[in-house]
């Protein structure tokens, strides 16, 4: 039954993503849509802030705008986090200010759309922080990714022009026209199913058995909606959407799961409508979906099979592996969410990834390491774009022709940038993990002094690998057993998040800027057909070779070794 639910959730999401993609393409182009009544609001925003939304800008001006405003947001959230003690209102539970390295990590994490969360929502963030800093950034960091993609689309569509459009225009409209309407719809679905939305503080109750318990709550629904839609993933409470207030039942679970992949999938169709190349969109969609299912299906199989170590104790486990999972979701819906959230750089969870069976952990990490099967809002497709450039280049070499991408010559400069961006990801993940492992190994009695690892052996290594993978993918989920609120982890993962957010935006926008101003070459019989199944296979192969191979040794040291010791 739950397999059927999963298939239904995926299918319905794809069906919804097609019209949404068409709508997004219209928003990018500035065409008429049914939400045009918002135009006066946007006009007001631009007038007050002194921005001409119609001014054409080249790639440099756009990137400068993007980075500047991101810096302003970073300063704002740092300020909010470091002054929690003095928040004048919306802090009924008297949450205290964050420690500086934790504030740094949290600030970077939310500005970069990662939402790694080295704090716990109910004790570490005031309601004011949750709304004015975190929810705000969940909108605009997602908006930044979408706006970057809009610039990229424009660069691909241009016949020969320097102009990529206007970053501010796309940023504001991505938030008002795409994210906010969807967030309101999702919030209503959540409210209808008992998700709280209150400014009342925690309630002290005496339970049926006579225990006194504090029950944390708050303005949950608004945050859950946008964290699911904007591939943010930062929940209101520590355990995210496992918490019954964030995700009370099957309906909210289906809606939240669908919201994770909805916009990322819609972006692919938006490309099809924007460039009027629908066949290409379906080809990319097929590659992404193949990768998604390649990770999803074995994860479902592993989780329904249960934990072999518990089977050995004589427990039969027809329910599957249940550690870290909620009774109302079970193993299949938890597996579906865990793969959806890792392939898209969302990072919300409805079950604890640390407690999944060994191989499932490897699949979750691969989703983030490849980072292009749907991917984050906007940036997911940008990652795919990098792989496409490399695939086109390699194909060109194979047939001995100057490679072309959508009518533009791909030359050394573009390929260099693409390869650098593609290699940054493994460098940060493997380098970071190596650094952490080394620090652990040289420490005297690390279990007492460093105290990071919640699990011994191979699984402990997986916890560190996962943390850097999640940071570099701007994902934000974790093997949460890792005691990550220490200066080492706060600073190292903070830096990784920064680099792996901005370089993969800067590089592709540069490429788009270069391609955009090149002369358009009409297709000839010798042109590589990007929308052919042949190129689809090529693209998939490039993703696996460039993306996956580099990570396999690390995965063997972690989850695969753990698996082998369990099955014996």
């Amino acid at each position: 039954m739950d397999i059927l639910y999963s298939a239904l959730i995926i299918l319905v999401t794809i069906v919804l993503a097609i019209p949404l993609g068409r709508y997004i393409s219209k928003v990018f182009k500035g065409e008429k849509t049914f939400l045009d009544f918002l135009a006066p609001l946007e006009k007001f925003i631009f007038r007050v802030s002194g921005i001409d939304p119609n001014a054409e800008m080249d790639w440099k001006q756009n990137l400068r705008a993007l980075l500047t405003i991101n810096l302003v947001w970073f300063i704002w959230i740092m300020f909010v986090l470091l002054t929690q003690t003095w928040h004048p209102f919306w802090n009924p539970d008297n949450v205290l200010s964050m420690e500086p390295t934790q504030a740094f990590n949290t600030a970077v994490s939310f500005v970069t759309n990662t939402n790694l969360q080295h704090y716990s929502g109910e004790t570490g963030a005031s309601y004011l922080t949750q709304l004015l800093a975190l929810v705000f950034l969940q909108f605009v960091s997602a908006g930044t990714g979408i706006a970057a993609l809009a610039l990229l689309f424009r660069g691909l569509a241009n016949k020969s022009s320097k102009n990529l459009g206007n970053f501010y225009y796309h940023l504001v409209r991505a938030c008002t026209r795409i994210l906010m309407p969807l967030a309101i719809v999702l919030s209503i679905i959540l409210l209808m199913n008992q998700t709280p939305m209150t400014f009342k503080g925690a309630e002290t109750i005496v339970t049926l058995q006579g225990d006194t318990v504090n029950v944390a709550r708050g303005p949950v629904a608004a945050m859950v909606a946008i964290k699911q839609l904007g591939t943010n993933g930062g929940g209101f409470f520590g355990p995210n959407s496992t918490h019954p207030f964030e995700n009370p039942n099957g309906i909210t679970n289906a809606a939240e799961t669908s919201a994770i992949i909805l916009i990322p999938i819609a972006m692919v169709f938006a490309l099809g409508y924007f460039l009027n190349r629908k066949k290409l969109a379906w080809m990319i969609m097929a590659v992404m979906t193949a990768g998604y299912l390649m990770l999803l299906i074995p994860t479902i199989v592993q989780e329904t099979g249960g934990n072999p170590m518990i089977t050995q104790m004589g427990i039969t486990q027809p329910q599957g592996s249940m550690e870290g999972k909620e009774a109302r979701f079970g193993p299949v819906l938890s597996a579906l969410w865990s793969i959806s959230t890792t392939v898209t750089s969302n990072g919300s969870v409805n079950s604890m990834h640390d407690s999944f069976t060994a191989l499932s952990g490897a699949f979750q990490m691969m989703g983030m390491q490849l980072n292009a099967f749907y991917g984050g809002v906007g940036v997911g497709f940008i990652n795919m774009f990098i792989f496409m450039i490399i695939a086109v280049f390699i194909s060109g070499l194979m047939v001995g022709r100057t490679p072309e991408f959508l009518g533009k010559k791909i030359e050394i400069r573009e390929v260099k940038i693409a390869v650098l961006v593609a290699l940054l990801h493994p460098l940060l993940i493997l380098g970071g993990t190596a650094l952490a492992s080394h620090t652990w190994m040289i420490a005297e009695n690390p279990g007492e002094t460093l105290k990071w690892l919640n699990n011994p052996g191979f699984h402990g290594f997986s916890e560190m690998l996962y943390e850097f993978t999640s940071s570099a993918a701007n994902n934000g989920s974790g093997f949460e057993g890792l005691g990550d609120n220490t200066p080492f982890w706060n600073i190292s993962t903070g830096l990784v998040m920064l680099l792996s957010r901005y370089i993969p935006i800067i590089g592709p926008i540069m490429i788009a800027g270069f391609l955009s101003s090149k002369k358009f070459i009409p297709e000839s019989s010798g042109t590589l057909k990007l929308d052919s199944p042949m190129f689809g296979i090529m693209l998939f192969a490039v993703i696996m070779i460039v993306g996956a191979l580099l990570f396999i040794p690390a995965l063997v040291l972690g989850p695969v070794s753990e698996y082998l010791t369990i099955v014996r």
Partner: protein
Amino acid sequence: MIKNLKNSVILTVILIALFGVIYPLIIYTIGFAFPSGSVGSPIVKQENIIGFENIGQSFTDDKYFWGRPSAVGYNAASTGGSNKGPSNPDYLAEVQARIDTFLVHNPGVKKEQIPSDLVTAPGSGIDPNISPESAYIQVKRVAASRNLSESAVKELVSTSVENTVLGMPVINVLKLNLKLDELK
């Protein structure tokens, strides 16, 4: 550059107002249409809130149905899972201890009959639910300690199964125990 910065600051202020204040207040206002759910669905008894429908409580007494184990002791102000890996020896010892405890309190139950959700901790630490099998297996103990007939308790359990749309069939432990207290 300076102009860029100034524009960015003003735009940021407006967007904070829009998405950090106005958007949440819109959702908050819509929440008034769901007066109970929007404050967490409290269960009120004699003017006291004794629990929330979706927040699990700790039950250890033989006369109540037990919920799932919790890594945080059902502390609803600091929730979370165990985050133990599948091969962690400490964790496996903990599961073994839960199995042993359950067998002591439920004589007659065989080890292989114990549903796995009764010996594993959920991610939230406050899972309000158990699987129907996990309730049925406790019927004998609950009935015996309350001097009720097994069939009456079993009947109560079967009427408490919630077949939720798009989720697994579950039983809300708190609601079931409340009904049990009324049964007498």
